[in-house]
């Protein structure tokens, strides 16, 4: 039995030929059992248009490279089954990030900049003693760090965020989650005040206006609302205690 005929409205744009305005192009194909958008896009590229640009690596929601707007919703194409889609589906690239062409965006540069700005490394000034045993970590703490580290940096939380769409400096849920990861890490010796310098501003956690599109759209289910609230409470306490006039 032949499956449904599906129509995919895909945005076409090549920054190298800006004279061709961004437009939607329709592709049609028949649905197959267990079909994902990963299969659909590869089939279209193989059989219909070899110039179609999109990103895929792992096709198992681990690499985070296939984030796109599926009928407006930011999600991973590889974990989207066609059986959950209507007959006509619109595919657009993720907003906020630099558009490389068609559905392909550069999330890497954005995430690298965010990593530098949030100083995403363990801060510790103490002398390293190679003969000493490693310090033990509480299992609870390790699990909290692990929860934050599940972020695959696909950028769905950033693309869906209204604030990130109008404020280029805003670090978004991915950035705030990153800070939360280091806050719970006992090896990072940064004080509340030092964290405040990093995220205690409009470009950090106080820029969030609580629309929670990040939390609603995270494809791997990182509890972003809880992470943002955690950092907000920490930073509010730091801001409250801060000496006026320093």
């Amino acid at each position, binding site marked *: 039995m032949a499956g449904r005929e599906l129509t995919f409205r895909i945005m076409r744009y090549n920054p190298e030929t800006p004279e061709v305005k961004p437009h939607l192009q329709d592709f049609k194909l028949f649905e197959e059992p267990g079909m994902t958008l990963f299969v659909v896009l590869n089939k279209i590229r193989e059989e219909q248009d070899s110039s179609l640009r999109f990103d895929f690596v792992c096709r198992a929601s681990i690499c985070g490279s296939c984030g796109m*707007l599926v*009928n*407006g*919703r*930011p999600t991973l194409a590889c974990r989207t089954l066609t059986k959950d889609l209507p007959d006509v589906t619109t595919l*657009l690239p993720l*907003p906020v990030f630099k558009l490389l062409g068609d559905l392909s965006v550069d999330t890497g540069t954005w995430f690298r900049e965010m990593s530098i700005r949030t100083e995403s490394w363990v801060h510790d000034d103490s002398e390293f003693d190679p003969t000493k045993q490693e310090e033990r970590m509480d299992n609870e703490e390790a699990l909290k760090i692990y929860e934050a580290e599940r972020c695959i940096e696909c950028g769905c939380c950033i693309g*869906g965020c*209204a604030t990130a*769409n*109008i404020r280029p400096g805003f670090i978004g849920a991915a950035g705030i989650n990153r800070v939360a990861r280091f806050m719970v890490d006992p090896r990072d010796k940064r004080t509340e005040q030092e964290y*405040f*310098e990093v995220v*205690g*501003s*409009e470009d950090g956690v*106080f*820029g*969030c*206006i*609580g*629309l*929670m*599109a990040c939390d*609603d*759209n995270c494809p791997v289910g990182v509890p972003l*609302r*809880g992470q*943002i*609230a*955690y950092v*907000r*409470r920490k*930073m*509010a306490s730091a*801001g409250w205690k*801060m000496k*006026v006039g*320093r």
Partner: protein
Amino acid sequence: MQLQKAMSYNPRGDFLVETAQMVSGLLLVLFLWAHMLFVASIWLGQGSFNALAGFMDRYGLLPLTIVFLVLVFGTHVGAVLRRMPRQYAEQRVVWKHAKLIHHGDTWSWVFQSITGSAIIVLAVVHIAIVSFAGINVHLSSLRVANPGFLVFYIVLLLLSEYHASVGLYRILVKWGFVNRYSMKRVLNVVSVLFIVVGGVSLWILYSLGA
């Protein structure tokens, strides 16, 4: 960092404005609810409405309320303005974005800025009229019986209850602790109740004035 930024550097600035926005918003919600309950004294009869108004007048509570409103309302407007997508380019991005991602809470934020702007105008008119004319059943019922004013009050009631409900929801979401979805339901019920309370008060005043 650029020179001007270094010279005006205040690390706590954003935190303080955010706090001012939240505290003033909470105070305005409490004020709105108390206001609806006070107006509802008309349910008990003209005497109780006039008695309450007279009590507030005698002990100087009316001018106090106006001072409170000027300060808190002004703080809230000042703090919130920074969040409004101001420039035309930003407006376009926000509308496009809201239409694109089909996300309820993003739409409610767009409405939040629209209702907020409308409330600035409507509330100022409302406060001006009340503070210059005074409060008693006779004045209020005559005003509400005027179809123009009736529409004005219905619109103000709906907009302010909506704005308060979404704003309160937003604060609770941002700080955590409570479940988002059950909280939204509770707030919806509370807002509908207050709209009903206000609506019935308006209807009583209208039938008295007509």
